[in-house]
Protein backbone atom coordinates (compact mmCIF):
# COMPACT_ATOMS: atom_id res chain seq x y z
CA UNK A 1 0.00 0.00 0.00
CA UNK A 2 2.83 2.36 0.73
CA UNK A 3 3.71 2.88 -2.92
CA UNK A 4 0.33 4.52 -3.40
CA UNK A 5 1.63 7.29 -1.21
CA UNK A 6 5.13 7.48 -2.65
CA UNK A 7 3.83 7.62 -6.22
CA UNK A 8 1.33 10.32 -5.36
CA UNK A 9 3.30 13.22 -6.88
CA UNK A 10 3.46 11.55 -10.28
CA UNK A 11 -0.24 10.65 -10.10
CA UNK A 12 -0.99 14.24 -9.25
CA UNK A 13 1.02 15.60 -12.18
CA UNK A 14 -0.49 13.16 -14.66
CA UNK A 15 -3.95 13.66 -13.20
CA UNK A 16 -3.77 17.42 -13.45
CA UNK A 17 -2.60 17.12 -17.06
CA UNK A 18 -5.54 14.94 -18.02
CA UNK A 19 -7.79 17.03 -15.81
CA UNK A 20 -6.78 20.25 -17.56
CA UNK A 21 -7.84 18.71 -20.87
CA UNK A 22 -11.13 17.52 -19.42
CA UNK A 23 -11.71 20.94 -17.91
CA UNK A 24 -11.30 22.87 -21.16
CA UNK A 25 -13.41 20.40 -23.14
CA UNK A 26 -16.00 20.50 -20.34
CA UNK A 27 -16.22 24.27 -20.81
CA UNK A 28 -17.63 23.67 -24.30
CA UNK A 29 -20.33 21.36 -22.97
CA UNK A 30 -21.23 23.60 -20.12
CA UNK A 31 -21.42 26.79 -22.20
CA UNK A 32 -23.71 25.23 -24.79
CA UNK A 33 -25.83 23.54 -22.17
CA UNK A 34 -26.07 26.74 -20.22
CA UNK A 35 -27.43 28.60 -23.18
CA UNK A 36 -29.55 26.01 -25.02
CA UNK A 37 -30.08 23.23 -22.46
CA UNK A 38 -28.67 20.91 -25.06
CA UNK A 39 -25.98 18.29 -24.62
CA UNK A 40 -23.79 19.03 -27.60
CA UNK A 41 -22.89 15.44 -28.19
CA UNK A 42 -20.65 16.41 -31.09
CA UNK A 43 -18.34 18.47 -28.91
CA UNK A 44 -15.99 15.53 -28.27
CA UNK A 45 -15.66 15.18 -32.03
CA UNK A 46 -14.86 18.86 -32.40
CA UNK A 47 -12.03 18.27 -29.95
CA UNK A 48 -10.89 15.28 -32.02
CA UNK A 49 -11.12 17.27 -35.24
CA UNK A 50 -8.99 19.94 -33.60
CA UNK A 51 -6.38 17.32 -32.76
CA UNK A 52 -6.25 16.28 -36.42
CA UNK A 53 -6.31 19.79 -37.86
CA UNK A 54 -3.49 20.86 -35.57
CA UNK A 55 -1.40 17.77 -36.26
CA UNK A 56 -2.12 18.10 -39.97
CA UNK A 57 -0.99 21.72 -39.98
CA UNK A 58 2.16 20.79 -38.11
CA UNK A 59 2.97 17.96 -40.51
CA UNK A 60 2.41 20.14 -43.55
CA UNK A 61 4.61 22.87 -42.12
CA UNK A 62 7.30 20.20 -41.87
CA UNK A 63 6.62 19.10 -45.45
CA UNK A 64 7.00 22.58 -46.83
CA UNK A 65 10.21 22.84 -44.92
CA UNK A 66 9.07 25.91 -43.03
CA UNK A 67 11.22 26.30 -40.01
CA UNK A 68 10.18 28.58 -37.18
CA UNK A 69 10.95 28.66 -33.51
CA UNK A 70 8.85 26.00 -31.80
CA UNK A 71 6.85 28.43 -29.72
CA UNK A 72 5.83 30.53 -32.73
CA UNK A 73 4.75 27.37 -34.53
CA UNK A 74 2.76 26.34 -31.49
CA UNK A 75 0.94 29.64 -31.14
CA UNK A 76 0.29 29.87 -34.86
CA UNK A 77 -1.15 26.39 -35.03
CA UNK A 78 -3.24 26.89 -31.92
CA UNK A 79 -4.78 30.02 -33.40
CA UNK A 80 -5.44 28.41 -36.77
CA UNK A 81 -6.93 25.31 -35.15
CA UNK A 82 -9.10 27.35 -32.85
CA UNK A 83 -10.37 29.44 -35.74
CA UNK A 84 -11.22 26.43 -37.88
CA UNK A 85 -12.89 24.39 -35.14
CA UNK A 86 -14.70 27.50 -33.99
CA UNK A 87 -16.19 27.88 -37.45
CA UNK A 88 -16.97 24.17 -37.44
CA UNK A 89 -18.90 24.72 -34.20
CA UNK A 90 -20.90 27.55 -35.75
CA UNK A 91 -21.65 25.34 -38.74
CA UNK A 92 -22.83 22.47 -36.55
CA UNK A 93 -25.19 24.76 -34.70
CA UNK A 94 -26.63 26.21 -37.91
CA UNK A 95 -27.07 22.85 -39.55
CA UNK A 96 -28.11 20.51 -36.80
CA UNK A 97 -29.43 22.49 -33.85
CA UNK A 98 -30.92 25.78 -34.99
CA UNK A 99 -33.69 24.21 -37.08
CA UNK A 100 -34.64 22.18 -34.00
CA UNK A 101 -34.89 24.88 -31.33
CA UNK A 102 -38.58 24.26 -30.84
CA UNK A 103 -38.52 20.49 -31.34
CA UNK A 104 -38.91 18.08 -28.41
CA UNK A 105 -35.65 17.65 -26.52
CA UNK A 106 -34.94 14.19 -27.87
CA UNK A 107 -34.63 15.39 -31.45
CA UNK A 108 -31.58 17.70 -31.23
CA UNK A 109 -29.81 15.02 -29.23
CA UNK A 110 -30.32 12.68 -32.14
CA UNK A 111 -28.95 15.10 -34.70
CA UNK A 112 -26.02 15.69 -32.35
CA UNK A 113 -25.21 11.98 -32.40
CA UNK A 114 -25.49 12.16 -36.18
CA UNK A 115 -22.97 15.00 -36.41
CA UNK A 116 -20.64 13.02 -34.14
CA UNK A 117 -20.66 10.10 -36.52
CA UNK A 118 -20.24 12.25 -39.60
CA UNK A 119 -17.19 13.96 -38.13
CA UNK A 120 -15.63 10.67 -37.06
CA UNK A 121 -15.88 9.25 -40.55
CA UNK A 122 -14.88 12.42 -42.39
CA UNK A 123 -11.76 12.77 -40.30
CA UNK A 124 -10.98 9.12 -40.84
CA UNK A 125 -11.30 9.54 -44.63
CA UNK A 126 -9.00 12.48 -44.73
CA UNK A 127 -6.47 10.87 -42.40
CA UNK A 128 -6.48 7.64 -44.36
CA UNK A 129 -6.23 9.40 -47.68
CA UNK A 130 -3.29 11.46 -46.56
CA UNK A 131 -1.35 9.04 -44.43
CA UNK A 132 -2.74 5.63 -45.27
CA UNK A 133 -3.75 5.02 -41.69
CA UNK A 134 -6.35 6.60 -39.52
CA UNK A 135 -4.12 6.36 -36.49
CA UNK A 136 -1.79 9.31 -36.80
CA UNK A 137 1.40 10.04 -34.93
CA UNK A 138 2.47 13.64 -35.18
CA UNK A 139 5.77 15.30 -34.59
CA UNK A 140 6.40 16.75 -31.17
CA UNK A 141 7.33 20.39 -30.88
CA UNK A 142 8.87 20.22 -27.46
CA UNK A 143 10.84 17.18 -26.43
CA UNK A 144 12.19 18.22 -23.04
CA UNK A 145 11.53 16.60 -19.69
CA UNK A 146 11.97 17.78 -16.13
CA UNK A 147 12.09 16.19 -12.78
CA UNK A 148 10.22 17.81 -9.96
CA UNK A 149 12.03 16.99 -6.74
CA UNK A 150 9.06 16.11 -4.55
CA UNK A 151 11.33 13.91 -2.45
CA UNK A 152 13.06 16.97 -1.14
CA UNK A 153 9.75 18.25 0.21
CA UNK A 154 8.61 15.08 1.93
CA UNK A 155 11.14 12.28 2.15
CA UNK A 156 8.86 9.41 1.32
CA UNK A 157 7.58 10.95 -1.94
CA UNK A 158 9.11 9.86 -5.18
CA UNK A 159 10.13 12.49 -7.68
CA UNK A 160 7.73 13.18 -10.54
CA UNK A 161 8.77 13.73 -14.11
CA UNK A 162 7.00 16.24 -16.28
CA UNK A 163 7.37 16.92 -19.99
CA UNK A 164 7.90 20.42 -21.34
CA UNK A 165 4.78 19.75 -23.34
CA UNK A 166 2.82 19.14 -20.19
CA UNK A 167 3.93 22.42 -18.70
CA UNK A 168 2.87 24.18 -21.89
CA UNK A 169 -0.44 22.34 -21.90
CA UNK A 170 -1.24 23.18 -18.32
CA UNK A 171 -0.06 26.77 -18.83
CA UNK A 172 -2.18 27.33 -21.92
CA UNK A 173 -5.27 25.74 -20.45
CA UNK A 174 -4.92 27.96 -17.39
CA UNK A 175 -4.66 31.00 -19.66
CA UNK A 176 -7.72 29.87 -21.63
CA UNK A 177 -9.73 29.36 -18.48
CA UNK A 178 -8.79 32.75 -17.03
CA UNK A 179 -9.50 34.54 -20.30
CA UNK A 180 -12.86 32.82 -20.66
CA UNK A 181 -13.76 33.62 -17.08
CA UNK A 182 -12.93 37.28 -17.66
CA UNK A 183 -14.82 37.32 -20.95
CA UNK A 184 -17.96 35.79 -19.53
CA UNK A 185 -18.02 37.75 -16.29
CA UNK A 186 -16.56 41.11 -17.23
CA UNK A 187 -17.44 41.94 -20.82
CA UNK A 188 -20.60 43.15 -22.47
CA UNK A 189 -20.88 40.16 -24.79
CA UNK A 190 -20.10 37.80 -21.94
CA UNK A 191 -22.90 39.31 -19.89
CA UNK A 192 -25.16 39.06 -22.94
CA UNK A 193 -24.29 35.38 -23.11
CA UNK A 194 -25.36 34.89 -19.51
CA UNK A 195 -28.50 36.92 -20.13
CA UNK A 196 -29.42 34.76 -23.13
CA UNK A 197 -28.79 31.65 -21.05
CA UNK A 198 -31.28 32.84 -18.43
CA UNK A 199 -34.01 34.19 -20.65
CA UNK A 200 -33.72 34.27 -24.43
CA UNK A 201 -36.98 36.06 -24.99
CA UNK A 202 -36.22 38.90 -22.66
CA UNK A 203 -32.64 39.15 -23.88
CA UNK A 204 -33.96 39.79 -27.37
CA UNK A 205 -36.04 42.65 -25.97
CA UNK A 206 -32.76 44.25 -24.89
CA UNK A 207 -31.76 44.40 -28.57
CA UNK A 208 -29.48 41.41 -28.09
CA UNK A 209 -29.37 39.27 -31.21
CA UNK A 210 -29.91 35.89 -29.64
CA UNK A 211 -28.78 33.89 -32.66
CA UNK A 212 -25.57 35.81 -32.80
CA UNK A 213 -24.90 35.16 -29.13
CA UNK A 214 -25.59 31.45 -29.60
CA UNK A 215 -23.23 31.33 -32.58
CA UNK A 216 -20.62 33.11 -30.51
CA UNK A 217 -21.03 30.57 -27.74
CA UNK A 218 -20.55 27.70 -30.15
CA UNK A 219 -17.56 29.46 -31.68
CA UNK A 220 -15.80 29.98 -28.37
CA UNK A 221 -16.60 26.54 -26.98
CA UNK A 222 -15.51 24.80 -30.15
CA UNK A 223 -12.44 26.95 -30.65
CA UNK A 224 -11.03 26.23 -27.22
CA UNK A 225 -12.10 22.58 -27.51
CA UNK A 226 -10.31 22.24 -30.85
CA UNK A 227 -7.19 24.00 -29.63
CA UNK A 228 -7.12 21.63 -26.66
CA UNK A 229 -7.32 18.79 -29.17
CA UNK A 230 -4.03 19.90 -30.63
CA UNK A 231 -2.48 20.18 -27.19
CA UNK A 232 -3.75 16.67 -26.46
CA UNK A 233 -2.11 15.40 -29.67
CA UNK A 234 1.16 17.02 -28.59
CA UNK A 235 0.91 15.52 -25.13
CA UNK A 236 0.02 11.94 -26.06
CA UNK A 237 1.59 11.82 -29.57
CA UNK A 238 -0.89 9.37 -31.14
CA UNK A 239 -4.44 10.26 -32.17
CA UNK A 240 -7.29 8.50 -33.95
CA UNK A 241 -10.78 9.61 -35.01
CA UNK A 242 -12.37 7.88 -32.04
CA UNK A 243 -10.53 9.66 -29.22
CA UNK A 244 -13.19 12.33 -29.01
CA UNK A 245 -16.07 10.17 -28.00
CA UNK A 246 -14.97 8.73 -24.67
CA UNK A 247 -12.98 11.84 -23.82
CA UNK A 248 -16.03 13.94 -24.62
CA UNK A 249 -18.13 11.79 -22.39
CA UNK A 250 -15.70 12.20 -19.55
CA UNK A 251 -15.49 15.92 -20.10
CA UNK A 252 -19.25 15.98 -19.97
CA UNK A 253 -19.03 14.08 -16.69
CA UNK A 254 -16.70 16.79 -15.48
CA UNK A 255 -19.20 19.44 -16.52
CA UNK A 256 -21.98 17.63 -14.67
CA UNK A 257 -19.75 17.18 -11.66
CA UNK A 258 -19.20 20.91 -11.46
CA UNK A 259 -22.86 21.69 -12.09
CA UNK A 260 -23.74 21.96 -15.75
CA UNK A 261 -23.96 25.50 -17.02
CA UNK A 262 -21.49 26.63 -14.40
CA UNK A 263 -18.18 27.62 -16.00
CA UNK A 264 -16.00 27.63 -12.90
CA UNK A 265 -17.65 24.38 -11.84
CA UNK A 266 -16.65 22.76 -15.12
CA UNK A 267 -13.03 23.73 -14.58
CA UNK A 268 -13.03 22.27 -11.11
CA UNK A 269 -14.93 19.15 -12.22
CA UNK A 270 -12.40 18.52 -14.98
CA UNK A 271 -9.40 18.74 -12.71
CA UNK A 272 -11.04 16.58 -10.09
CA UNK A 273 -12.07 13.90 -12.55
CA UNK A 274 -8.60 13.83 -14.12
CA UNK A 275 -6.87 13.32 -10.81
CA UNK A 276 -9.41 10.73 -9.65
CA UNK A 277 -9.12 8.80 -12.89
CA UNK A 278 -5.34 8.67 -12.92
CA UNK A 279 -5.38 7.73 -9.27
CA UNK A 280 -7.84 4.94 -10.01
CA UNK A 281 -5.84 3.69 -12.98
CA UNK A 282 -2.68 3.57 -10.92
CA UNK A 283 -4.09 2.10 -7.76
CA UNK A 284 -7.38 0.31 -8.42
CA UNK A 285 -5.61 -3.03 -8.60
CA UNK A 286 -3.78 -2.50 -5.31
CA UNK A 287 -6.84 -1.12 -3.55
CA UNK A 288 -9.11 -4.00 -4.55
CA UNK A 289 -6.51 -6.69 -4.02
CA UNK A 290 -6.20 -7.39 -7.74
CA UNK A 291 -9.95 -7.89 -8.35
CA UNK A 292 -10.34 -4.77 -10.47
CA UNK A 293 -7.52 -3.70 -12.75
CA UNK A 294 -6.79 -0.39 -14.41
CA UNK A 295 -9.14 -1.46 -17.27
CA UNK A 296 -11.89 -0.34 -14.95
CA UNK A 297 -10.81 3.29 -14.93
CA UNK A 298 -13.48 4.16 -17.51
CA UNK A 299 -16.06 2.31 -15.46
CA UNK A 300 -14.92 4.39 -12.56
CA UNK A 301 -15.50 7.63 -14.49
CA UNK A 302 -18.95 6.51 -15.62
CA UNK A 303 -19.81 5.39 -12.13
CA UNK A 304 -19.00 8.90 -10.89
CA UNK A 305 -21.20 10.36 -13.61
CA UNK A 306 -24.10 8.09 -12.76
CA UNK A 307 -23.80 8.67 -9.04
CA UNK A 308 -23.67 12.43 -9.45
CA UNK A 309 -26.64 12.47 -11.82
CA UNK A 310 -28.68 10.32 -9.49
CA UNK A 311 -27.87 11.91 -6.17
CA UNK A 312 -26.86 15.44 -7.02
CA UNK A 313 -27.95 16.19 -10.58
CA UNK A 314 -27.36 19.88 -10.04
CA UNK A 315 -23.63 19.08 -9.59
CA UNK A 316 -21.38 19.82 -6.70
CA UNK A 317 -21.70 23.57 -7.16
CA UNK A 318 -25.14 23.93 -8.67
CA UNK A 319 -28.44 24.80 -7.07
CA UNK A 320 -31.42 22.58 -7.75
CA UNK A 321 -34.31 24.04 -9.68
CA UNK A 322 -37.92 22.97 -9.46
CA UNK A 323 -40.00 22.32 -12.53
CA UNK A 324 -42.75 24.88 -12.96
CA UNK A 325 -46.22 23.39 -12.85
Amino acid sequence: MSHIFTALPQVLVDGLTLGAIYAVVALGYTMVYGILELINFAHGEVFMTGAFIGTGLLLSLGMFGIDMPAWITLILILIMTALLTGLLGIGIERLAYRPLRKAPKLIPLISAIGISFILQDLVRFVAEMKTGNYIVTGTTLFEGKFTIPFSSIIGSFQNATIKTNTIILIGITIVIMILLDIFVNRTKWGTAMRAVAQDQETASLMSINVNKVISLTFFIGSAIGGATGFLFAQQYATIDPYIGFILGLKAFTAAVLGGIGNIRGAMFGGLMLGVLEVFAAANLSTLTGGVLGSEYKDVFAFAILILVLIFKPEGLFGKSVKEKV
Partner: protein
Amino acid sequence: MTKRALLEMSQVSAYYDQIQALQDISLEVNMGEIVTLVGSNGAGKSSTLKAICGQIKTSGTISFLGNDISKLPPHQTAKLGVAHVPEGRRIFPKLTVKENLEMGAFQLKSKKDIEQQMELVYQYFPRVKERLHQKGGTMSGGEQQMLAIGRALMSKPSILLLDEPSMGLAPIIVEQIFEIIQELNQTGMTILLVEQNAYQALSIAHRGYVIQTGKIILTDSAQNLLENKQVTEAYLA
Protein backbone atom coordinates in the same frame (compact mmCIF):
# COMPACT_ATOMS: atom_id res chain seq x y z
CA MET B 1 -55.69 65.69 -34.92
CA THR B 2 -52.42 67.48 -35.05
CA LYS B 3 -50.81 64.84 -32.89
CA ARG B 4 -48.39 62.55 -34.66
CA ALA B 5 -48.98 58.80 -34.37
CA LEU B 6 -45.80 57.29 -33.00
CA LEU B 7 -47.00 53.74 -33.20
CA GLU B 8 -49.73 52.52 -35.47
CA MET B 9 -51.15 49.04 -35.87
CA SER B 10 -53.61 48.32 -38.58
CA GLN B 11 -55.49 45.10 -39.23
CA VAL B 12 -53.02 43.01 -37.26
CA SER B 13 -53.82 39.33 -36.75
CA ALA B 14 -51.75 36.67 -35.04
CA TYR B 15 -51.95 32.98 -34.31
CA TYR B 16 -50.61 30.86 -31.46
CA ASP B 17 -50.30 27.32 -32.76
CA GLN B 18 -53.67 27.10 -34.46
CA ILE B 19 -55.58 29.40 -32.21
CA GLN B 20 -56.16 32.96 -33.31
CA ALA B 21 -54.84 35.28 -30.63
CA LEU B 22 -55.37 38.60 -32.39
CA GLN B 23 -58.02 39.49 -34.91
CA ASP B 24 -57.64 42.61 -37.04
CA ILE B 25 -56.29 44.79 -34.28
CA SER B 26 -55.96 48.45 -35.20
CA LEU B 27 -54.72 51.00 -32.74
CA GLU B 28 -52.47 54.01 -32.51
CA VAL B 29 -50.37 55.62 -29.85
CA ASN B 30 -49.50 59.28 -30.27
CA MET B 31 -46.37 61.00 -29.09
CA GLY B 32 -46.53 61.76 -25.38
CA GLU B 33 -49.63 59.73 -24.61
CA ILE B 34 -50.40 57.04 -22.11
CA VAL B 35 -52.63 54.57 -23.88
CA THR B 36 -53.99 51.59 -22.03
CA LEU B 37 -55.27 48.27 -23.24
CA VAL B 38 -57.79 46.67 -20.92
CA GLY B 39 -59.51 43.32 -21.11
CA SER B 40 -59.83 40.02 -19.30
CA ASN B 41 -57.20 37.34 -18.96
CA GLY B 42 -56.28 35.83 -22.29
CA ALA B 43 -58.12 38.48 -24.28
CA GLY B 44 -54.98 39.27 -26.28
CA LYS B 45 -53.46 42.17 -24.35
CA SER B 46 -50.03 40.62 -23.98
CA SER B 47 -50.20 39.24 -27.50
CA THR B 48 -50.69 42.77 -28.81
CA LEU B 49 -47.50 43.91 -27.12
CA LYS B 50 -45.67 40.83 -28.34
CA ALA B 51 -46.89 41.52 -31.86
CA ILE B 52 -45.51 45.05 -31.73
CA CYS B 53 -42.04 44.04 -30.66
CA GLY B 54 -41.90 41.08 -33.00
CA GLN B 55 -42.10 38.19 -30.56
CA ILE B 56 -44.97 36.62 -32.45
CA LYS B 57 -45.59 36.40 -36.17
CA THR B 58 -48.33 38.64 -37.48
CA SER B 59 -50.16 39.70 -40.58
CA GLY B 60 -51.14 43.31 -41.12
CA THR B 61 -48.98 46.38 -40.71
CA ILE B 62 -47.32 47.86 -37.68
CA SER B 63 -45.47 51.10 -38.15
CA PHE B 64 -43.30 52.87 -35.69
CA LEU B 65 -41.80 56.31 -36.33
CA GLY B 66 -42.71 55.78 -39.96
CA ASN B 67 -40.87 52.43 -40.28
CA ASP B 68 -42.73 49.22 -41.00
CA ILE B 69 -41.71 47.03 -38.09
CA SER B 70 -44.23 44.23 -38.57
CA LYS B 71 -41.66 41.75 -39.81
CA LEU B 72 -38.75 42.75 -37.60
CA PRO B 73 -37.40 40.43 -34.90
CA PRO B 74 -37.46 41.75 -31.31
CA HIS B 75 -33.80 42.78 -31.17
CA GLN B 76 -34.32 45.06 -34.15
CA THR B 77 -37.51 46.70 -32.94
CA ALA B 78 -35.68 47.28 -29.67
CA LYS B 79 -32.91 49.05 -31.57
CA LEU B 80 -35.47 51.36 -33.16
CA GLY B 81 -36.60 52.49 -29.73
CA VAL B 82 -39.37 50.15 -28.60
CA ALA B 83 -38.75 49.10 -25.02
CA HIS B 84 -40.91 46.27 -23.76
CA VAL B 85 -41.25 45.53 -20.06
CA PRO B 86 -42.60 41.99 -20.22
CA GLU B 87 -45.26 40.41 -18.10
CA GLY B 88 -43.85 38.97 -14.92
CA ARG B 89 -40.93 41.44 -15.02
CA ARG B 90 -38.48 38.86 -16.38
CA ILE B 91 -35.37 40.41 -14.96
CA PHE B 92 -32.24 38.27 -15.30
CA PRO B 93 -32.18 36.67 -11.85
CA LYS B 94 -28.54 35.59 -11.88
CA LEU B 95 -27.16 38.86 -13.17
CA THR B 96 -26.48 41.68 -10.75
CA VAL B 97 -28.72 44.71 -10.79
CA LYS B 98 -26.00 46.67 -12.53
CA GLU B 99 -25.55 43.98 -15.17
CA ASN B 100 -29.30 43.94 -15.72
CA LEU B 101 -29.19 47.66 -16.40
CA GLU B 102 -26.18 47.26 -18.69
CA MET B 103 -28.07 44.70 -20.71
CA GLY B 104 -30.86 47.22 -21.08
CA ALA B 105 -28.32 49.57 -22.64
CA PHE B 106 -26.93 46.87 -24.92
CA GLN B 107 -27.40 48.94 -28.04
CA LEU B 108 -25.77 52.08 -26.67
CA LYS B 109 -22.22 52.38 -27.90
CA SER B 110 -20.73 55.14 -25.77
CA LYS B 111 -19.93 54.73 -22.11
CA LYS B 112 -21.05 58.28 -21.49
CA ASP B 113 -24.55 57.57 -22.79
CA ILE B 114 -24.80 54.52 -20.59
CA GLU B 115 -23.76 56.43 -17.50
CA GLN B 116 -26.18 59.20 -18.32
CA GLN B 117 -29.05 56.71 -18.58
CA MET B 118 -27.94 55.07 -15.34
CA GLU B 119 -28.19 58.41 -13.57
CA LEU B 120 -31.66 58.87 -15.01
CA VAL B 121 -32.74 55.47 -13.72
CA TYR B 122 -31.33 56.27 -10.26
CA GLN B 123 -33.39 59.44 -10.24
CA TYR B 124 -36.62 57.55 -10.75
CA PHE B 125 -35.65 54.53 -8.71
CA PRO B 126 -33.26 55.40 -5.88
CA ARG B 127 -33.85 51.93 -4.47
CA VAL B 128 -32.21 50.37 -7.52
CA LYS B 129 -29.04 52.33 -6.90
CA GLU B 130 -28.78 50.95 -3.39
CA ARG B 131 -28.77 47.40 -4.71
CA LEU B 132 -26.46 47.66 -7.70
CA HIS B 133 -24.27 44.68 -6.83
CA GLN B 134 -26.99 42.40 -5.62
CA LYS B 135 -28.27 39.54 -7.84
CA GLY B 136 -31.53 40.50 -9.53
CA GLY B 137 -33.29 37.40 -8.28
CA THR B 138 -32.80 38.32 -4.65
CA MET B 139 -34.94 41.45 -4.82
CA SER B 140 -38.58 41.74 -3.84
CA GLY B 141 -41.32 41.80 -6.43
CA GLY B 142 -41.74 45.57 -6.33
CA GLU B 143 -38.02 46.19 -6.62
CA GLN B 144 -37.86 43.80 -9.53
CA GLN B 145 -40.62 45.69 -11.28
CA MET B 146 -38.72 48.93 -10.78
CA LEU B 147 -35.58 47.30 -12.11
CA ALA B 148 -37.49 46.00 -15.13
CA ILE B 149 -38.78 49.48 -15.96
CA GLY B 150 -35.36 50.96 -15.25
CA ARG B 151 -33.74 48.41 -17.51
CA ALA B 152 -36.12 49.34 -20.30
CA LEU B 153 -35.31 53.05 -19.83
CA MET B 154 -31.61 52.30 -20.28
CA SER B 155 -32.01 51.94 -24.03
CA LYS B 156 -33.19 55.58 -24.46
CA PRO B 157 -36.50 54.34 -25.86
CA SER B 158 -39.13 56.37 -27.70
CA ILE B 159 -41.96 54.24 -26.37
CA LEU B 160 -42.39 52.05 -23.33
CA LEU B 161 -44.61 48.98 -23.55
CA LEU B 162 -45.63 47.94 -20.05
CA ASP B 163 -47.21 44.53 -19.57
CA GLU B 164 -49.09 44.22 -16.27
CA PRO B 165 -46.71 46.19 -14.10
CA SER B 166 -49.00 45.70 -11.09
CA MET B 167 -49.04 41.92 -11.31
CA GLY B 168 -48.70 40.29 -7.93
CA LEU B 169 -47.63 43.47 -6.14
CA ALA B 170 -48.93 44.92 -2.93
CA PRO B 171 -51.37 47.84 -3.43
CA ILE B 172 -48.92 50.34 -1.96
CA ILE B 173 -46.23 49.34 -4.40
CA VAL B 174 -48.70 49.41 -7.26
CA GLU B 175 -49.52 52.95 -6.28
CA GLN B 176 -45.84 53.89 -6.45
CA ILE B 177 -45.35 52.22 -9.79
CA PHE B 178 -48.30 54.04 -11.28
CA GLU B 179 -47.00 57.33 -9.95
CA ILE B 180 -43.67 56.70 -11.62
CA ILE B 181 -45.40 55.82 -14.87
CA GLN B 182 -47.20 59.15 -14.75
CA GLU B 183 -44.00 60.96 -13.92
CA LEU B 184 -42.24 59.33 -16.84
CA ASN B 185 -45.04 60.42 -19.08
CA GLN B 186 -44.85 63.98 -17.85
CA THR B 187 -41.21 64.14 -18.88
CA GLY B 188 -42.28 63.16 -22.38
CA MET B 189 -42.25 59.37 -22.49
CA THR B 190 -44.92 57.69 -24.61
CA ILE B 191 -46.43 54.69 -22.90
CA LEU B 192 -48.59 51.77 -23.95
CA LEU B 193 -49.88 50.12 -20.81
CA VAL B 194 -51.54 46.73 -20.51
CA GLU B 195 -53.34 46.12 -17.24
CA GLN B 196 -55.66 43.69 -15.58
CA ASN B 197 -56.35 46.34 -13.02
CA ALA B 198 -58.46 48.32 -15.44
CA TYR B 199 -59.57 50.96 -12.96
CA GLN B 200 -56.10 52.02 -12.02
CA ALA B 201 -54.85 51.89 -15.60
CA LEU B 202 -57.69 54.02 -16.92
CA SER B 203 -57.25 56.56 -14.15
CA ILE B 204 -53.74 57.47 -15.33
CA ALA B 205 -54.23 56.98 -19.09
CA HIS B 206 -55.28 59.46 -21.73
CA ARG B 207 -57.01 56.99 -23.95
CA GLY B 208 -57.95 53.33 -23.75
CA TYR B 209 -58.84 50.36 -25.90
CA VAL B 210 -61.00 47.49 -24.68
CA ILE B 211 -59.96 44.14 -26.08
CA GLN B 212 -62.01 40.97 -26.00
CA THR B 213 -61.07 37.59 -27.48
CA GLY B 214 -58.45 39.13 -29.72
CA LYS B 215 -60.63 41.95 -31.01
CA ILE B 216 -60.84 45.59 -30.11
CA ILE B 217 -64.43 46.20 -29.19
CA LEU B 218 -64.29 49.72 -27.86
CA THR B 219 -62.05 52.75 -27.81
CA ASP B 220 -62.48 56.11 -26.19
CA SER B 221 -60.87 58.59 -23.87
CA ALA B 222 -59.94 57.03 -20.57
CA GLN B 223 -62.43 59.22 -18.75
CA ASN B 224 -65.31 58.10 -20.93
CA LEU B 225 -64.35 54.47 -20.61
CA LEU B 226 -64.29 54.79 -16.85
CA GLU B 227 -67.85 56.01 -17.00
CA ASN B 228 -68.97 53.54 -19.66
CA LYS B 229 -71.48 51.16 -18.18
CA GLN B 230 -70.45 48.20 -20.30
CA VAL B 231 -66.85 48.59 -19.23
CA THR B 232 -67.66 49.07 -15.57
CA GLU B 233 -69.72 45.93 -15.55
CA ALA B 234 -67.23 43.73 -17.37
CA TYR B 235 -63.92 44.84 -15.94
CA LEU B 236 -64.43 47.04 -12.96
CA ALA B 237 -66.99 45.22 -10.88
